[in-house]
């Protein structure tokens, strides 16, 4: 069963674009990466799924239930870590976590202390005294406290130091091993590469690609670099060639399609060097972003 099922979801804020015609689905136990530049509509998509805002058109289902009509029911099994965490300033961390736990039918006391220990959270401090990174830690504990079946992480690592990031990723992997489905939104490709099995790329409110992360790297694009005397970029005027760049007699380009077409071109040339490799994710995404 699909845990998340989004069909032609569209959101406009008045006239300004949120997301347009977004469709995708996420299976149980997956870690789905949702990548795009700032303002692409990542948070909008998550907020629609949490029914904080309502769609202009299209629909979305979580656990097979419509998000608009079954919001409270769905949210029982959801954990959410927003990109910026805000809590009631006057409360103590422990009181806030207990307050949050009181909404779910579980006895989360043990888990509260376990998680706080892992994240090195000081429970007796006031929210208003916490730094950005420490607030984020409260967010992580609060989001995981009730053992949700589905986790929404919206740029979760911002504000965390590298050590904490690693602990956090381990935590997410453990949760995922227990069967928790994770929806991971980020613009940092490294983290997505580390965690996710499948990715969706969003740009200017529209999904431009949904793909297995390995497939994206292996099958789709090759990074080709050819060095030869008097080489013109026009020599590689083939369908499937993009991002052609020339420097010091070396022509670099991305190629998507039957690699034999490129090899045939090259075989007729007098080369001094050639490399064909998988591009880094970074390069793939820059390609999508531009």
């Amino acid at each position, binding site marked *: 069963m699909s845990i998340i099922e989004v069909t032609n979801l569209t959101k406009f*804020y008045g006239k300004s674009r949120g997301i347009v015609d977004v469709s995708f689905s996420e299976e149980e136990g997956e870690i789905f990466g949702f990548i795009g530049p700032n303002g692409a509509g990542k948070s909008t998509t998550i*907020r629609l799924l*949490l029914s*904080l*805002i*309502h769609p202009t058109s299209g629909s979305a289902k979580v656990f097979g239930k419509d998000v608009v009509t079954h*919001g*409270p*029911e769905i*949210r*029982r099994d*959801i954990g*959410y870590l*927003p990109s*910026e*965490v*805000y*809590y*009631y*300033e*006057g409360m103590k961390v422990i009181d806030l976590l207990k*307050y*949050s736990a*009181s*909404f*779910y039918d579980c006895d989360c006391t043990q888990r509260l202390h376990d998680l706080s220990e892992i994240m090195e959270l000081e429970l007796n401090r006031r929210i208003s005294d916490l730094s950005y990174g420490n607030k984020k830690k409260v967010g992580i504990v*609060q989001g995981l406290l009730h053992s949700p079946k589905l986790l929404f992480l919206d740029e979760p690592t911002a504000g965390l130091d590298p050590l904490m990031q690693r602990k956090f990723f381990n935590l997410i992997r453990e949760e995922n091993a227990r069967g928790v489905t994770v929806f991971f939104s980020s613009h940092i490709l490294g983290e997505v590469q580390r965690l996710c099995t499948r990715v969706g790329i969003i740009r200017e409110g529209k999904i431009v690609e949904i793909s297995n992360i390995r497939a994206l790297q292996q099958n789709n694009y090759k990074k080709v670099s050819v060095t030869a005397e008097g080489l013109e970029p026009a020599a590689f005027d083939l369908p499937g060639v993009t991002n052609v760049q020339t420097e010091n007699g070396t022509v670099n380009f991305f190629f998507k399609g039957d690699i034999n077409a490129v090899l045939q071109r090259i075989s007729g040339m007098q080369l001094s060097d050639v490399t064909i490799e998988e591009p880094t994710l970074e390069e793939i995404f820059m390609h999508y972003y531009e």
Partner: protein
Amino acid sequence: MNIFLRELRANLKSLVIWCVIMALLIMIAVSKFSAFADNPEMLAMLDSMPPAMLDALSMRAFNLTTVSGFYGIMFVYFGLMAAIAAAMWGSDIISKEERDKTVEFSLVLPVSRSRVVTAKALAALVNCIAFVLITWAISLVAVRSYNPDQAFYNFLSLEMQAMFSIELIFLAIGLLLGCAMKQYKRSASVAVAIILTTYFMSIMSQMQQSLDFLKYITPFRYYEASALFFTGKMDSTYLLISAGLIVICVAAAYLIYNKRDLYI
């Protein structure tokens, strides 16, 4: 229940501040009253003032030298304070979540928006009830030394009921503003604007016969101290209008809040 209790705790400070202001108002007013009490010269002086001015200050109906008369004039201030406090509580209790950006926490919890509004409205209602009761208690203590008769106690009780009705009306209006207005910063100022506008409407409608129809629009005319004093009860027409107004505002608040996008 947990939302309700948290809101009560979060709003306690504001309740205490309002009660302190009310206590100061009553204490200062009663100490001024000591100059009026059983003083026929003061009565003569008031009689010589222009009637329009007395109307504006709603002083004509009352004999200022008695405790009841004095409290009749005080009622305007009780009404205004009650209206402002209730409207602020109503709008703030909803809109502060968006102002402090805590909606992304509080409305991702497994609760429906209706349940949130209900819990918060009840917490604000408790504040309103407490505010009336405390005003009542302070009044009883403040006038004790004048040994008021039973008629005064009856009148005071009626005034407090009227004050509570005004609170309910403005609590409902405040709730509606908090739920409906996406620009959360404005909901409190709009609430105050409504209070001041309706208050001046009530003064105008008393002074100008042609503006008499305004009495149906402004809640401050629904419960007038002089009418309460002379009839000994609240006018049932106005009670009905009030109830209608409250039901409409609250229903609209629920409807709109359930439908609208939260401002994040």
